[in-house]
């Protein structure tokens, strides 16, 4: 038969070490030392706090971490994570000094260079365009150089490369990935630079690109901003409205309290997302409207907790004492009751941010909350859903991002609950 494992008396923390230390150290050291006191919950809060700080940093300066702007078309469409775009690349003989297209430029009276391309592949167009662009710049230069390549077309990639090796053409422009597959067969050739496209993107994209060629990773980083804006603002607005209402209702406990509680309880029982859908549907899409809609949902959460605690604290002896000493209601509320509700409000605030971010993402997934120009995870998921058959990366990563942010805030709330309510600790 199993015997309960946890019957051994709990070991008390070593009273001398951390207590003596606590007396004369600064705030940060105090926080660190308190881990002996709180145990695993301290780590819970610490880890989630680091995550929260990280996300806030991302939200404030996304441009530092994101390789590209969120709305720029930086690459080909539907490029898988880690896959490289198939750019047209310049290939020359190993003994040639040319590295990029510009190096092929020759003096105006010299013979024009011949460049080979493969038939039926759009590399010739890219070559022409790029050469003309370079030529325009060179024309006005002092060196009198021009770049007007003669283009020679071949039937197969092999023939193209063979022509280069035989010296029939000076260089060829072929697709990079196709070239790399058979490059081993030609020992005397060397790959130069891609002739078009940003050379920075030649290595591919960490999390791939979406259906119009935006970088998924950059949009992910930028999306942190709107998620946190919605989470924080909605929770703050709800707190600012809900806490005073709860204090007032709990303290007065008259007919106003009963009416308010009825309204708040009804709202609390109602599915929040659906109420938010109604409000944003009427107000129209904008960040402010989403914040308003979500804030309205969470007022009852604060109201109920604060009211309940006010009712309990009001009966305490020290409140009676203050009243008999002639303290006015405002002062009692402010000095004796309000400090008691702060811990629970802090916990709800943290969990609330998590909830608000989830609700906001749900709204924008439904296409309701935010204007579609904003980089937002919910919008990205809704866009990606249409391409679920081809582009798994478009729906996988934004969802992971939402999960991590929500996890950070709810873990923090969880840890804070355990720390602020020692009675619950053994649960």
């Amino acid at each position, binding site marked *: *038969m199993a015997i309960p494992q946890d019957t051994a008396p709990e070991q008390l923390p070593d009273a001398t070490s951390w207590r003596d230390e606590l007396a004369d150290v600064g705030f940060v050291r105090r926080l660190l030392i308190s881990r002996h006191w709180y145990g695993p919950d301290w780590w819970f809060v610490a880890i989630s706090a680091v995550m929260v700080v990280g996300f806030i940093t991302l939200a404030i300066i996304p441009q530092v971490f994101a390789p590209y702007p969120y709305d720029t078309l930086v690459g080909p469409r539907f490029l898988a994570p880690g896959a490289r775009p198939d750019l047209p690349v310049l290939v020359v003989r190993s003994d040639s000094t040319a590295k990029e297209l510009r190096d092929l430029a020759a003096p105006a009276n010299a013979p024009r260079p011949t460049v080979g391309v493969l038939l039926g592949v759009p590399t010739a167009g890219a070559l022409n365009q790029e050469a003309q662009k370079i030529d325009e710049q060179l024309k006005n230069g002092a060196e009198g150089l021009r770049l007007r390549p003669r283009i020679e077309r071949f039937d197969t990639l092999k023939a193209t490369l063979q022509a280069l090796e035989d010296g029939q053409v000076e260089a060829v422009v072929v697709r990079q990935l196709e070239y790399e597959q058979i490059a081993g067969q030609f020992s005397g050739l060397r790959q130069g630079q891609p002739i078009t496209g940003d050379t920075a993107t030649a290595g591919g994209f960490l999390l791939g690109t979406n259906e119009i060629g935006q970088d998924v990773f950059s949009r992910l980083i930028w999306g942190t901003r709107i998620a946190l804006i919605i989470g924080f603002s909605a929770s703050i607005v709800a707190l600012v409205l809900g806490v005073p209402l709860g204090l007032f209702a709990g303290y007065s406990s008259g007919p106003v309290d009963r009416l308010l509680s009825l309204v708040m309880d009804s709202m609390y029982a*109602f*599915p929040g*997302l659906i109420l938010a*859908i109604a409000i944003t549907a*009427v107000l129209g899409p904008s960040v402010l409207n989403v914040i308003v809609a979500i804030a309205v949902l969470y007022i009852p959460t604060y109201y109920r907790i604060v009211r309940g605690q006010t009712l309990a604290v009001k009966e305490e002896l020290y409140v009676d004492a203050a009243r008999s000493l002639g303290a006015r209601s405002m002062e009692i509320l402010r000095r004796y009751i309000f400090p008691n509700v702060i811990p629970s409000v802090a916990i709800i605030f943290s969990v609330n941010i998590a909830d608000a971010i989830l609700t906001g993402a749900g709204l924008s997934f439904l296409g309701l909350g935010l204007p579609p120009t904003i980089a937002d995870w919910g919008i990205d998921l809704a866009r990606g859903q249409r391409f679920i058959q081809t582009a798994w990366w478009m729906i996988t990563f934004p969802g992971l991002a939402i999960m991590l942010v929500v996890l950070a805030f709810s*873990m923090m709330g*969880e840890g804070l609950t355990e720390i602020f309510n020692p009675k619950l600790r053994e649960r």
Partner: protein
Amino acid sequence: MPVSPFALIFIVIGVPALLGLTYIFVRGSAGLRRYILTRVALTVPMVFILASLVFFIMRVLPGDPVRSALGPKGSPETIQRIRTQLGLNDPLLVQYGRFLGGVVTFNFGNSLVGGHRPIVDEMSERFPATLELVVPASIVALLIGIYGGAYAASKRKRTMDYALRLYSVIIYSLPIFWLGLMLQLLFGVRLNVLPIAGRIDPVVGTTLKHVTNVYSIDALISGNWPALRSVALHLVLPTATLGLILSGVFVRLTRINVIETIQSDFIAAARARGIRERVLVYVHALKNAMIPVITLIGLQVAILLAGAVLTETVFSWPGMGSYLVERISGRDYTAVQSVITVFALFVALISLAVDIIYSLVDPRVRY
């Protein structure tokens, strides 16, 4: 003529519920009777408040429903004519009275867009679909939640306990629509074993006789096995999505309550009598721990319905949630207002039912 599904739902669920309520009321103690009366009396203002909230959100906030429904092609005269027809030019109070009357008589008027059908008819096609999703999902959630929670409690502070706690934290942080998309990606696209959209295969669907519009019941009573199989396959992913998301809360609640119960004296006494640990946890402790869990089930209805809206959108499930989203993009304010009111009614009735069941299970709450 097919029976209106609303009438059918009422007959199937409402009549036994009413009979049961009457029975409890007649046979129960005076305390129980008083409790039930108070609770029913409290439901009325709750529905009233929610309906009013919906009305004022839809009517007082800026925006003209008719203009947005007609779009740019509506001339001012047409807009005025339709507004008068719909009674939108009447004083707000008159409209409010008419709206409340509509809620009581279940007559929400006609939809502003499409075929201008009565909204009740449209909803009676959609509501059974939502029921068909929500009921199995709740069962999945309760099964996982209650057994997972009890198991975690019995393995307290061991690996499986921590694993299940982690499960409930992660489940809480998952966006439900993302979980749906991931399941679609895995089972629908990668493995290609389950359908990812709709309620039934369209070819099989033509053979199904629609009686209740709850397809599984329709297929069962008409003995249409291919249809039943198709319906069941289509149900797997949406049910799993909604059920998994809900199960996290239940794991957590059950675990806490079972742990608390295990520490009480009667369990120690039972243990001293030599009752096996398994029976102790799953029979003695779980039964008592379920009492507080039942009340919390009532509160989870909100999560359930919000989750249903998103799940229906992800899986193109033609229920109330996707109807709501469709009508919002179609700017059909009358329909939106009605759907939200029906949701409010649903929430109020479920929480009423849960509270009454609770008062039966736990005699302590009757005051």
